[in-house]
């Protein structure tokens, strides 16, 4: 038996000038994780992110439940973005079981997932605001998020953790008069988020504070394997809704937002621009959606896969590419479910970005990576 301690706890000989800070897990600026930061004066010499404090074994749990009962617990890693984290699993199961989804259900799925993306992004934006000491930017998104949560509650019956997507469609049809309410609330929501520019995104102190900090070049962004808003802020036009359209995304009219700077400011601006695109998508989808029809294919009570089979599906979530790999061995339970999440891919960039930065930039760079600790730990 060796007495080796984990990297953050081991005693190590360091320069007398260098101080080791344990930022987290009980720290207001860390989330459910720890960042071991070594500082020389006000400069960060080395940084070691230490996730894993909220590991819940979702993937192992999925091997003991059948394809349908997996749904409520697989969405737990990101309860604010629960439609998107279920999306690849549901798409994969549909391919495994060979189910054709009705057209109306596809549109409802797109609307729900775009609403959920906005809900997640507002939550992320609120925390980004309070990390930079901007308390108004904490309260405004947290309040405006309620608009969309109300919509999702009308749609699915739950404020978060909707468990709305099922193999074969969605669980329920839309309530009557939903289209009008949705259009009105989404229009108001878009008006509200445009007002954020005046207080947050055009704020001279914010720009001076976050521009030119934590620059991730285009090459490094590709090399480190980052996804989502981090990748698009570094000038790579990569959005799975465009590159590998799933459901009805190819029929809808929207564009991807790309910025070239690659700094914290660009990384924080991309999700905000994406929210406006989401509003466009929702409006277009409401227009094109078939007004009536089935939303769910009836399945057999305990569906089984067809022998040894595997499938990999991925979607664009609020934090980037979100993949789900399902292996079936012909039983009612999946043999293996593997979630490949954007949060963890983006976290990889953190040590490279923080090296040489000032300690004051740590929250700005860390949270601009669009990282959700619970999702990364799964």
């Amino acid at each position: 038996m060796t007495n080796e301690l984990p990297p953050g706890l081991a005693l190590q000989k360091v320069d007398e000038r260098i101080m080791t800070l344990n930022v987290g897990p009980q720290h207001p600026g860390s989330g459910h994780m720890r960042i071991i930061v070594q500082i020389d004066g006000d400069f960060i010499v080395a940084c070691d992110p230490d996730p894993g404090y909220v590991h819940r074994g979702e993937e192992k749990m999925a091997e003991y439940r059948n394809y349908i009962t997996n749904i409520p617990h697989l969405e737990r890693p990101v309860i604010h973005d629960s439609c998107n984290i279920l999306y690849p699993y549901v798409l994969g199961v549909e391919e495994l079981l060979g189910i054709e989804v009705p057209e109306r259900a596809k549109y409802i799925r797109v609307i729900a997932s775009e609403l959920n993306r906005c809900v997640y992004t507002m939550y992320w934006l609120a925390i980004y605001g309070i990390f930079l000491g901007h308390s108004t930017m904490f309260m405004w998104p947290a309040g405006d998020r309620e608009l969309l949560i109300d919509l999702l509650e009308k749609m699915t019956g739950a404020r978060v953790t909707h468990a709305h997507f099922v193999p074969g469609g969605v669980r329920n049809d839309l309530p009557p008069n939903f289209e009008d309410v949705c259009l009105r609330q989404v229009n108001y929501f878009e008006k509200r988020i445009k007002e954020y520019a005046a207080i947050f995104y055009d704020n001279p102190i914010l720009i001076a504070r976050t521009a030119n900090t934590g620059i991730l070049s285009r090459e490094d962004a590709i090399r480190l394997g980052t996804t989502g808003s981090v990748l698009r802020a570094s000038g790579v036009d990569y959005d799975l809704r465009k590159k590998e359209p799933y459901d009805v995304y190819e029929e809808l009219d929207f564009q991807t937002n790309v910025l070239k700077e690659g700094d914290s400011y660009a990384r924080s601006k991309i999700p905000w621009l994406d929210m406006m695109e989401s509003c466009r998508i929702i409006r277009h989808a409401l227009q094109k959606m078939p007004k009536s029809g089935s939303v769910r294919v009836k399945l057999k009570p305990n569906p089984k896969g067809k022998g040894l089979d595997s499938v990999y599906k991925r979607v664009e979530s609020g934090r980037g590419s979100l993949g789900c790999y399902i292996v079936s061995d012909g039983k009612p339970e999946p043999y293996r479910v593997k979630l490949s999440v954007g949060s963890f891919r983006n976290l990889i960039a953190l040590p490279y970005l923080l090296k040489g930065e000032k300690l004051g930039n740590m929250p700005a760079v860390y949270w601009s990576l669009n990282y959700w600790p619970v999702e990364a730990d799964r």
Partner: protein
Amino acid sequence: MSVIAPNFKFSEFVKSILDNVFWILLIFALIGLPAIQIILFYIEMPVIDGELLTPFLALTWLADPSRTLPILKAFMTTDLFKIAAFPGFGFAALLAAGTIFIERKMLAKLQLRVGPFYCGKIEGILQLMGDGLKLISKEIIIPAKADKPIFWAAPVIFVATAAAFVALIPVAPGWVVADVDVGLLAVFAIIGFFPIITILSAWSSNSKFPFIGGIRALHQMVSFEIPLILSLLGVVILTGTLNLSEIVASQSNFPWIIFLPIGAIIFFITILAELERIPFDLPEAESEIVAGWLTEFSGMIYGLVQLGTYLKLYAFAALFVVLFLGGWTGPMIWPPFPEEIITDGIVMGPITVKIPGLPIFSQEMLNGVVWFVIKTVGVIFFILLPRGVFPRIRIDMLLSLGWYKLIGLAFVNIFIALGLLYAGVLGPGGIL
């Protein structure tokens, strides 16, 4: 969107006020009166006008205005009253408590929420009392490796220093606790004391985050003290005095902010930095260093530091008013006291009550206090406002702002003051 706050109803408003009055009267009757009696029984009774002042006699006198008013008037000229109540600690603490309440409600309105609402029934006015009770009842936890004497002493010294700052502020003509001729120098000395207390408390807690916060506070306060002192030199050059009461008296015609706007702006920015308010709240940046130098404080120690912080805020705002906005000067808005009440007494039908010794305060003094409070609250409002609008800045941006921009502008301000003096436009005592 669910709305928590019900609509305003006048009847409920009146009812809640009456409720509060009822409880205050009940508590006073049940606790206050017995307490007064017990105190009166146990203290040694003085002999006044050849009579031993027994509690019953004291109560009789309290009911008789012609006996009470001279005693009250005599008490109000004592130093104890000045230090504890009116221009000193009590007045400042009252304004500071009002500041906390206004800050919370104002920020809440700005951020589309309700703010303190339930405590005290009327818009949560007793929230501060509840917070104070909570802080008092909490356990004080001290880190095992802390330097305990300094750790205990630092918050107390902090409040004492802030109170000493308050003591130098003239509120109305003649109403100042310490009327020193080198008043402005004494202010500089007290401002120079705050970083020492901060670094003492940060270092004595022997913890990493408070240490970083303390070092940041030290950097911030020391580098903003220089533009602060330089920005006030313009006023000193034009008035030719360091006595704060005389500086106020010199602004009877116009406030100095008209001639020295640059100095006023620099002083305002340095106030924000000295008070560690957003956008300069780096020593307490919670997402980077937990709560900075306040991290290890708990219970009433933390409460004392907060009290000191808000006393300091009041004192700085009052200093801005005294130096740039003309202190207590302003048009007479307080109505004059009716002369006939003093000469003829109060006539109520057949009864005439003669009350010699009214009024307790002069009309000029009350008018001055009203103007002073209005101006101070205005300045406090502008000190609080950036908290809802700006994010926190970084330490290098802060230092470059202090050393490059503000010091240069402060010299420009001094040259403007010297130019006005030598051109013969302005000088000691106003327009020449």
